[in-house]
């Protein structure tokens, strides 16, 4: 009986507690495989056909040499030999050891676990605007392991952005925001796939861009874009997280598909010039951050104002009364449920 080390390919690690190498024993390759399947029962159906023969697309190696060139499954093994198992073709992988280390504190929480982490890694989030709201959202999502982050922004970094837009720094002045955002995200987590949309969001391109993502975060700085993002997210059935901020107040609302939309709360855009922009009214950099943590602060006030507004005018709304109530419920739970 020799003790050998078996190298486990990515797709099989779900059955070996994510170990890349495990010990097994046997006097030949066939016995080693049988011992392996005994130790890790999940491997059995992956390695063997129903009749008990080893699946033919699997290539087996002893110290790097294919056993087909040796004595096949009868190839003898010695203490310390390295046995390799590989599919004839390259397949996908479960979490890698590096991912397990990086997201360990997520994975140990039962509410997330490796399944939840895998979902985060496979998810795609679109952020409209790499500004005051888009910045913290992008960095936290990147750190959490969201696999693909799309950023729509056609601005360049200006010095008046820097007190709140933490994706960008002094060295980025004059650079396209999408470039500086991608760099900042990769500093936090180089495995994130950043998709740069260095263009204005228009009715021409919005549908094609938004449909590629699972969730949309709206941190835009103007009403036409805000309504456009809402409308397209609504029609594409994408959950929309809508955030806005001015001076010391902020508001965030989650519009889940089927539970109403932005137009239920705000049926029509305000007249041009009636709502000041950040450049006109100012915005507290600290509040963009604060807004993330304690959404209730300014949000409650804004919420009750908007609630009245929506009741007054909901007959004009595109979504149903039912949708309005659900949007409000969703908003309430969001306001009280965060942090």
């Amino acid at each position, binding site marked *: 009986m020799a003790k050998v080390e078996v190298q486990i390919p990515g797709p099989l690690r779900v059955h070996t507690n994510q170990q890349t190498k495990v010990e097994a024993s046997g006097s030949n390759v066939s016995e080693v495989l049988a011992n392996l399947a005994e130790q890790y029962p999940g491997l059995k159906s992956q390695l063997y056909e129903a009749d008990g023969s080893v699946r*033919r697309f699997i290539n087996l190696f002893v110290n790097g040499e294919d056993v087909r060139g040796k004595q096949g499954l009868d190839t003898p093994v010695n203490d310390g030999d390295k046995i390799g198992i590989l599919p*004839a073709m390259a*397949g*996908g992988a479960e979490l890698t050891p590096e991912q397990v280390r990086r997201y360990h504190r997520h994975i140990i929480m039962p509410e997330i676990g490796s399944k939840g982490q895998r979902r985060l890694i496979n998810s795609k989030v679109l952020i409209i605007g790499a500004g005051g709201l888009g910045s913290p959202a992008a960095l936290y999502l990147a750190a959490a392991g969201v696999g693909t982050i799309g950023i729509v922004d056609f601005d360049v970094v200006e010095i008046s952005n820097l007190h709140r837009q933490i994706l960008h720094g002094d060295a980025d002045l004059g650079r396209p925001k999408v470039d500086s955002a991608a760099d900042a995200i990769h500093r936090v987590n180089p495995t994130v796939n950043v998709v740069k949309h260095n263009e204005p969001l228009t009715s021409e391109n919005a549908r094609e861009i938004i449909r590629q993502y699972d969730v949309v975060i709206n941190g835009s700085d103007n009403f036409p874009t805000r309504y456009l993002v809402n409308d397209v997210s609504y029609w594409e059935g994408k959950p929309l997280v809508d955030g806005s901020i001015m001076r010391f107040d902020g508001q965030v609302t989650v519009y889940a598909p089927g539970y109403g939309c932005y137009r239920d709360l705000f049926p029509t855009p305000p007249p041009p010039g009636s709502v000041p922009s950040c450049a006109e009214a100012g915005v507290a950099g600290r509040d963009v951050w604060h807004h993330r943590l304690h959404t209730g602060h300014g949000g409650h006030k804004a919420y009750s104002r908007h609630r009245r507004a929506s009741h007054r005018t909901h007959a004009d709304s595109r979504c149903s009364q039912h949708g309005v109530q659900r949007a409000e419920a969703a908003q309430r739970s969001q306001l009280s449920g965060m942090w």
Partner: protein
Amino acid sequence: MYGAYTVNDPIINLDRAGTIESPLDLIGNTPLIRLRSFERELSPGVELYAKAEWFNIGGSVKDRPALRIIEDAERDGRLTHDKILIDSTSGNTGIAYALICAVKGYQCEIVMPENASEERKRIIAAYGAKIIYTDPYEGSDGAIRYVRELVARNPEKYFYADQYNNPSNWKAHYDTTGPEIWDQTGGRVTHFVAGLGTTGTMTGTGRRLKELNPEVQLIGVEPDAPFHGLEGLKHLETAIVPGIYDASVIDKKVGVSTEDAYEAARQLARQEGILVGPSAGAALKAALDVARTLRHGVVVVLFPDSGTRYLSTELWRLQGPR
């Protein structure tokens, strides 16, 4: 509703009668082959056709997205002659990039797991591209992660073609594969079956066919488990999901075992004289399962490549001792 639809995409040269001005003109416009021997076991109202993608000059369906990715990037300036085209691929896309870069004079680097088939490695090298091998135990996702890190460290040096996330991938199929199938079936196609890898084939072809006739059923084929021998296909529940994947396009997703896929490919060779790769075998198995449930219909299944690319693998190894 089945009005005539003409293919008029400028990148495809439809006239194959005369001389060919460039090898790249032999990308797209592949034949649709009727699989009559398989139709015998189906209801008389059911027709079964295969889109024979190995007729592309590079030998696989991947010529289409690779050409579109490169030409779109040339148009908007992302790809210039001072940059190196780089991407991760388990093989066919690498061959397509290498071939197109050879024609157009670009430098090309292909990142692939070391256990990719020997034929693929040699073909890519023959076109003059550089191959970077990654740990075979990390699979195709390991190659993806490697390229991302490499490009993040040196963004100016590379044009990262990124077939998994580049919309040019599915647009190639939206503009060519979809309209071709529509034309070749006279607008009668009722079911389209294709494997899911980058998912570009299904996303692009599917979107176009649905626009032409919302009743067309789209069936995506994937391996039945993360551990499989179906080159080019991905088990989407466990693999890195491509950015261009749009689950809402597909009507039904079918899992096929490696063994069933190989068996279907072998049967196709013996019965129809058509030698295909393992992903085509998987697509055929899924298409037959769908076709058997129909009384009427025109089922089109896409065969991504030929079996000659897998002669060294288990697919065509005759039964016998390992």
